[in-house]
């Protein structure tokens, strides 16, 4: 395979996924906030709440179109750029994407039209139900996507089948109730709610600072402050759950994001600063808080969190067992009735992926030297600096947002938010924070999964399609230009409607 086509495919997928994820969190959060606002309208009958639903709905609509149009290329890219991945794990992964379409995407996409066009055609209650269905649809959609992603991080409920040369489903229940997937789902949708809340908070603050649409903005801000505070708190609690599940499965990811080269005495400390040096396997200028990591990761005081160096020793052992599985697989392929080889393969198939790591360095996997095994083991350490810092930035921004929403909530409940200029300015400049935090989180989760596409099963460098780098260059450049134009248009339109304000926009 052409290596650079693979690298370009990675770049393309990473870019288009991160781009898509600029719009999804806002959809997740704003859809629920629209449903809340409209519920207040239906319960109180005050038309200002209907106007709020309609105005934020216009911005929601622009964002939703961007989300839809950038989501489709992600599904298609598994086939176009990651053909071997699709062939190898489509049995499990593909079914999750299909169910997402069937159960969730249909729901949101069908009702979004009625949300906009149904105001005069439906009863109050009827329209309210439509709005809630859009919100549930988009959140169900996130559920299935994160079950699929959770399976990439922690591939449960499946087994390698030598007759079809791929992974096959053994328990749908295990895949669906994968603890990693569940933790990821709640963490991610909460982050989406924070994004929606910040969006409404900042724009309302902008109106209040200019003393425009004051009644409208005050109410919107109260909704944003309370919804945002609850969401920001749950992001942290559920992020902790996410950390705990990572420590159970992806121990290398945990050690890498902590730049923890050695295994420390239990309970391990948490580094809040440091400059990781991957080559020499040490961290310079490290500042540690004792105990914290051990307690978060193991929820005990006496269990150790393994460091990178110890994990590497373990990995070498798994590569060796993997080679046995690989040998057995070759025998089964030569003679499919060889029961002994099937037994060996079956016993060691969970390490088969580790043998595949060697293919990066040699075609002769069965006779790999100890030196190559060591090299292959080393290739399982992701980029420590990226993980270390993306994690810390994400947490810092998360904590700041909790503080901001807490202040907002306090001021709103005292009816003082609208004339506290310092707070309003803070609220405006904080607008990009949820997006930055989310992209850091995405980088941590997905870059931290490297060098695997399916953790411990399928290495990334084997997952691609047999395509040329010229082909990928063509589509990559097309994506970059197309997406840049779209982003500009999106921002122009958003600004136009925000400037116009609710009165003009709704007349």
């Amino acid at each position: 395979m052409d290596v650079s086509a693979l690298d370009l495919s990675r770049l393309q997928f990473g870019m288009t996924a991160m781009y898509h994820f600029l719009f999804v969190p806002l959809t997740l959060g704003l859809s629920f906030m629209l449903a809340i606002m409209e519920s207040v309208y239906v319960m109180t009958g005050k038309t200002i709440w209907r106007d709020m639903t309609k105005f934020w709905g216009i911005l929601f609509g622009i964002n939703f179109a961007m989300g839809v149009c950038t989501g489709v290329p992600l599904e298609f890219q598994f086939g176009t750029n990651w053909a071997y991945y699709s062939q190898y794990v489509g049995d499990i992964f593909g079914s999750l994407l299909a169910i997402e379409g069937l159960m969730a995407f249909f729901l949101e996409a069908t009702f979004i039209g009625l949300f906009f066009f149904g105001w005069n055609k439906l009863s109050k209650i009827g329209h309210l139900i439509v709005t809630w269905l859009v919100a549930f649809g988009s959140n169900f959609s996130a559920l299935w996507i994160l079950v699929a992603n959770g399976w990439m991080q922690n591939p449960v409920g499946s087994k390698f089948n030598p007759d079809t040369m791929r992974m096959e489903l053994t328990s749908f229940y295990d895949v669906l109730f994968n603890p990693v997937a569940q933790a990821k789902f709640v963490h991610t949708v909460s982050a989406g709610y924070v994004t929606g809340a910040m969006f409404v908070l900042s724009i309302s603050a902008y109106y209040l600072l200019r003393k425009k649409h004051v009644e409208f903005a005050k109410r919107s801000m109260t909704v944003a402050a309370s919804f945002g505070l609850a969401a920001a708190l749950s992001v942290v609690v559920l992020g902790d759950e996410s950390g705990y599940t990572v420590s159970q499965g992806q121990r290398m990811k945990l050690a890498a994001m902590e730049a923890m080269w050695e295994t420390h005495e239990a309970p391990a400390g948490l580094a809040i600063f440091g400059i990781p040096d991957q080559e020499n396997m040490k961290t310079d200028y490290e500042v540690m808080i004792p105990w914290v990591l051990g307690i978060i990761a193991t929820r005990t005081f006496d269990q150790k969190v393994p460091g990178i160096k110890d994990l590497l020793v373990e990995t070498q052992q798994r590569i060796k067992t993997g080679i046995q599985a690989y040998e057995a697989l070759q025998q089964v392929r030569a003679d499919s009735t060889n029961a002994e080889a099937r037994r060996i393969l079956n016993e060691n198939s969970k390490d088969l992926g580790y043998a595949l790591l060697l293919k990066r360095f040699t075609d002769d996997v069965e006779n790999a030297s100890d030196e190559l095994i060591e090299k292959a083991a080393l290739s399982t350490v992701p980029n420590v600096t990226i993980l270390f810092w993306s994690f810390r930035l994400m947490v810092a921004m998360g904590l700041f947002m909790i503080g901001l929403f807490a202040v907002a909530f306090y001021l709103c409940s005292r009816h003082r938010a609208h004339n506290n200029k310092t707070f309003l300015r803070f609220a405006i400049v904080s607008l990009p924070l949820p997006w930055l935090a989310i992209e850091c989180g995405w980088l941590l989760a997905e870059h931290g999964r490297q060098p695997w596409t399916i953790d411990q099963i399928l290495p990334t460098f084997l997952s691609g399609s047999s395509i040329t780098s010229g082909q990928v260059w063509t589509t990559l450049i097309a994506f970059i230009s197309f997406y840049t134009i779209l982003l500009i248009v999106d921002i122009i339109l958003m600004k136009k409607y925000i400037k116009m304000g609710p009165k003009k926009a709704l007349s």
Partner: protein
Amino acid sequence: MLDYELLRLIWWALLGILLIGFAVLDGFDLGVAGLLPFVSKTDVERRIVLNTVGPVWEGNQVWLILGGGAIFAAWPALYAVSFSGFYLAIFLALFAIIIRPVGFKFRSKMPNPQWRNFWDNALFVGGIVPALIFGVAFGNLFLGVPFHFNEELRSFYTGGFFELLTPFPLLCGVLAILMMLLQGSTFLALKTEKKIQQRSVAYGQVISLLTALLFTLCGVWLWSSIEGYAIISEINTAGPSNPVIKEVSRQTGTWMTWHQIHPMTYAVPALGIFMAFMTALLLRTRCHTCAFLSSSLTTFSIIATAGLSLFPFLLPSSTHPSHSLTVWDASSSQMTLFVMLIATLIFLPIVLVYTAWVYRVLRGKVTEKTIKKETNAY
């Protein structure tokens, strides 16, 4: 759990149903966009045309996404080989498709005529190009596509983009465009009035006759001079999904075997031609709902004919015929097919019910008055 053979057959049929769902529902969206420059001249007319599909195109587009998802889930090998093999063509279709959401949403948000013209053109391209590409891709299935597997079942596509554009597939591409335009024109006849409706009816009649003609032409061509594929080794219909352990031969006329064994199946293409003529007639007699249904049946019959002729092949290989993907050796595991079937049986009826409800709420003509009343109109 159900029998593996039966599950494979069910998923073959379900794949067909999803493709037909896409062609019928998203088909009229694409067709309306394709007809945009011909049936509407002024800005108000254009807005009326766009607003006929405005509230429903998002839901309709999910049929495409679900179709892709179903191929990925039920026929992963087909997904891997076709999407990576047709790389540039797929992306071309993709860009054309994803320009529509923003086109609809952005077009009328600025009053500038150049801005609106730009998006009208973009929507036209977004309507025509996907139909053309899907048709060309379908046409290539009959000819076979140059690909093979290595021993790890990694697929290699050895052709290029322009090799896909030979006469027969191109003819299929034009047929696909006509099908979508037929859906679009009958839908517009149903949803609009006065000038736009008159133009749609006029175009619709011509398009339906052309559809019948091209469909017949494709059939004759297929029968007379295209080499089909046939499995000549023993078939284990419940065997493991490994597409490299059978033998396949090529012969002219083989694509008609199925029809020859079961002459009843000739009814399907016959229905397609009949319904295309009926659509023209019904448009003439101003029965617009019937015309739309009749056009949808035409679409159904044409796609069903293609599927039946190819059976049991999904994607034949022209360079390594024995590596061709078939219903019996390119599916997911028995358990996945079963789980997916359960999910489909639960959710597809629900989807159909609420989709029908949405169309009921939105019934009625789209006119200048209705779009002026609606603040959210496109």
